[in-house]
């Protein structure tokens, strides 16, 4: 890539723009560095990932509102985790975490365990239990 071809396509994603080092050739064919603040194909690929994540988060949110899943399911998606990863964060087996995704099981969890989940998701216990976004 030549120095004058270094792309400057800032992503439309909020909190996205960042400056990257690119290695490029100058007018004499020597290698040098240049700063790029984004390139369209990369932006498209990244936006695609976040569309997918946001769609999952929203679908899960609706399920929590309908009482099909517990709030843990929502924060699991929101933190880009999956069950094996969350299980290792809270030191539980995967089948246990799966159970905790059921609203009725979530209600009966010990205060200590709820605190642990809240810590992993970096939120307060109150937010985990009573987020208005997850209520009708």
């Amino acid at each position, binding site marked *: *890539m030549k120095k004058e071809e270094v792309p400057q396509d800032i*992503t439309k*994603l*909020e*909190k*996205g*723009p*960042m*400056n*990257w*080092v*690119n*290695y*490029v*050739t100058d007018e004499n*064919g*020597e*290698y040098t560095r240049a*700063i*790029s603040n984004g*390139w*369209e*194909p*990369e932006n*498209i*690929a*990244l936006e*695609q*990932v*976040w569309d*997918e994540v946001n769609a999952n988060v929203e679908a899960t949110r609706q399920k929590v509102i309908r009482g099909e899943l517990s709030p843990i399911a929502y924060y699991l998606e929101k933190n*880009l*985790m*999956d069950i094996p*990863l969350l299980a*290792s*964060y809270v030191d539980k087996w995967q089948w246990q975490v799966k159970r905790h995704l059921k609203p009725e099981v979530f209600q009966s969890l010990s205060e200590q365990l709820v605190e642990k989940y809240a810590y992993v998701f970096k939120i307060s216990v109150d937010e985990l239990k009573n987020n208005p976004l997850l209520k009708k």
Partner: protein
Amino acid sequence: MTDIALNFEHRHSAHCENGVISNLFRYNGLDISEPMAFGIGSGLFFIHIPFIKVNGIPGTSYRIWPGQIFKRASKRLGVEMYSDTFRNPKKAKEALDAALAKGIPVGLVVSVFYLPYLPEVFRFHFNAHNLVVYGKEGNEYLISDPVMEHVTRIHEDDLMRARYAKGTPEPMGKMYYPTVMPKDIDMKKAIVEGIYKTGYDMSHIPIPFFGSKAIRYLASKLKDYPEKVGDRKSILYLGNIIRMQEEIGTGGAGFRFVYAAFLHESGRKLENNWLIDKSKELTKTGDLWRDFAFKAGRVCKNRSADKTSFKDLSDILVECSHQEEKLFFELYSKIKTI
């Protein structure tokens, strides 16, 4: 502990591992550029293993696995490293503070998900990011993260989360720094060894998942995506190939330009025009990779996985594969004679 700010020169880099090697070695008196660290550490590679899935997407990588560049570069340059992991997070914190108190900037392996200073859209659960801690002020550590333009800082609780992220691989509070720097370095020997290894990896591994063969392997899979996995997944898989190629710290074109910069710098250093020619060839292949990403980006944008466009993309990859196979075969067979 009292506040510490070591006089550490931060240099913005394309890639975290190379950047940390380059910055840490320079602090310890060995001035080595990022591309040099990448090349001597034999960082360039190509891997496609469809049955190893990352978030349900076939794994593709344009570089060697994390940690290897460091290992190889320090071995070839004769740098001795201290490196340790800690079962107990408290011990990890004490060890870091103790090293800082002794005036040693420390390299850490962390997860990018817990680095609040990174733009949110880049924070995934990637657990093999590297950065340097060069001081502490109150409850904040002073950070030189090579992918950031400037130095930054992080709260000690966030750093702890980042050092003890779960998943694969688990950093386990890993920290490292050079202990013994070499007196005199045979740069030529280190460069030749680095190129020889990459030349071998790219052109001689007799398994289809590694090296330039793997690019062809990916090409053959790619052209059947629309029929085999359907529209939605085809686009997701393709998006992932672009992301691996262009995202954080590849310097564009899946590290090909960083490696070309290394060949160029080596050519100048060793006064060898053949290496400069090889650098030019790789730059051309890098441009072809960019062409691929550009066209693939458009396909992703339209979100329709039609057979013709996937076939065209696959053809570009086949061409990349042939160019790289020829180039690295030549580097492998001739580098020891320069």
